């Protein structure tokens, strides 16, 4: 009745050809990186042990562990989150629940895009000019974390805004009709329904913040410190900068040490990202509306 003619066959063949071509292009992007990651795991896995994670570096960082850098990254991330999460969630609530569609909202959106797009080294310059010098925080965890917080603010804003907007408008209308104020509606209806989505954004931000190097180079992270930070006005070592230091700045560095540092850093970042993705998929599966 309907037999494939010559044209049909040619079209089918060309469709398959393009599928193979684009599949090949995808593979070219993905496979080399996976091979590289496998090499990192293979080389770095050899040095990673509890001792490597929880002892101080010794012999001009060529031996010993990475504990001060690991702890410093935790400090930097936590202080940055304290600033960027409340600020970012507030901004997202404003954009999703209050903002009208006008030039002012567009200006805010453009500012958010630019905060994400400005080179990290320019954020570093801003951190030096504003926090280290103008506000007089000196090179400290506080100055570095504030710089990181501003740089990663868009991550929280975008994720939070998306999850707020995913809450159906009918939920809000039902609440308003009961006489609730806007804030009561947001607090009792919108936020509880969006909280997991916001959490995915926060986890993503942890991953971004932990991996950044340039913004902390001159604002609070030190190449090497003989002591651990005691408060936000101390300098600190950081894992990302430590990788830069051990792979470029230290003579006679044994090959495996930088691999180990790189593996720890990338493990933290990818774990956080996977957690965020898993949470998002769980959320999508659970959605009732």
């Amino acid at each position, binding site marked *: 009745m309907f037999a494939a003619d010559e044209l049909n066959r040619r079209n089918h063949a*060309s*469709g398959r050809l*393009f*599928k193979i071509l*684009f*599949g090949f*292009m*995808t593979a070219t*992007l*993905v496979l*080399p990186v*996976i091979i*590289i990651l496998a*090499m990192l795991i293979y080389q770095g896995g050899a040095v990673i042990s509890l001792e490597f994670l929880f002892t101080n570096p010794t012999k001009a960082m060529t031996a010993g562990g990475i504990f001060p850098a690991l702890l410093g990254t935790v400090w930097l991330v936590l202080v940055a989150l304290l600033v960027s999460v409340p600020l970012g969630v*507030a*901004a997202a*609530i*404003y*954009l999703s*629940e*209050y903002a009208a569609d006008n030039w002012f909202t567009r*200006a*805010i*959106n453009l*500012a958010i*895009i*630019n*905060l994400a*797009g*400005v*080179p*990290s*080294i*320019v*954020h*570093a*310059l*801003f951190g030096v*000019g504003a926090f280290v010098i103008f506000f007089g925080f000196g090179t400290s965890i506080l100055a570095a974390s504030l710089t990181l917080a*501003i740089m990663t*603010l868009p991550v929280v804003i975008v994720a939070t805004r998306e999850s707020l907007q995913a809450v159906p408008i009918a939920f809000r209308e039902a609440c308003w009709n009961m006489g609730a*104020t*806007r*804030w009561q509606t*947001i607090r009792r209806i919108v936020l509880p329904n969006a909280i997991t989505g916001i959490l995915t954004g926060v986890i993503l931000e942890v*991953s971004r913040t*932990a*991996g*950044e*190097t*340039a913004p902390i180079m*001159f604002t609070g992270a030190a190449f090497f410190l003989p002591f651990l930070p005691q408060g936000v006005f101390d300098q600190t070592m950081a894992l990302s*900068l430590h990788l*830069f230091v051990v*792979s470029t700045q230290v003579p006679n560095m044994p090959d495996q040490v930088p691999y180990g540092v*790189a593996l720890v*850093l990338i493990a933290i*970042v*990818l774990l956080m990202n996977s957690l965020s*993705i898993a949470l998002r998929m769980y959320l999508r599966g659970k959605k009732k509306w």
Partner: protein
Amino acid sequence: MQTSTPPTALPQAAPERGAAYDFARRDVAWYLDKLVQLLVFIGGISAIVFIVGIFVFITKEGLGFLAAEFKAGEFFLSANWRPTSEVRPTYGILALIAGTASVTGLAMLVAIPFSLGAAIYIAEFATGKVREALKIVVELLAAIPSVVWGFIGLSIMNPLIIELFNVPIGLTVLNAGIILGLMAAPIMTSIAEDALKAVPDRYREAAEAMGATRWQVIYKVVLPAAKNGLLGAVLLGVGRGFGETMAVLMATGHSINIPTSVFDSVRALTATIAAELGETAVGSPHYRALFTIGIFLFLITFLINLTADLIVRGIRKEN
């Protein structure tokens, strides 16, 4: 008003709408509502405050240089970046611009076709689990920190390039270009894929109903409909490559040079700031010159982002 009043739990005299109504509602909840509105507004405006703040503070630090040592001709047209010279320091960033441009250009040459291809594959050909898995992999690849990429360039690509091409040094335009390409590609892929998915399915169905093949649908219908989004993706990728710091600092070889081949070492604008800011005295001409490079970087990326935003918003209007 009366008919819609629920039978229980309302205050006895529900006030009429209007001024009196508003006034009567000024209880704790009303004031709290206004307070929160103010607080989230501050959050919203903070993004603008920060972007303006970035410009103000880097300009403030760079201003002394712009007022005294800055000569536009030398700054943009001289390849001599010798800020530490005792006799006569010169501040020409042409070689640094060439370094940034060559690395970003090579990276985009590789990354643009491949990430658009990958986006087409993920959006139009892959289905079900394969599609989901690829999207996750692309997202994870985009998350790898730039310092790790720099380390990969230094310790994996460097010996590989020396071996493969039989050249004395592997920290070159080629190395940084490949690293930067691999870095920018996942981001471009995922934005481009979003743009392709934003094309309504009824366009594809209409074309298929006319007897178009898969490729004809993509080439004649989907790509033209998504072209603004794709252009936006490319621009954001360019911006990302242009502003990348740690990876180019570690993989370019960091020597001031206008490259004549991909096997030359170069130095990028961003990397220069990262490498030299720590050694300069606050307020010295060298320090201020580095901030002036920062102003230049800020303005260029601002322009790229603005253009990308205008283009992407263009499609929203059309739809």
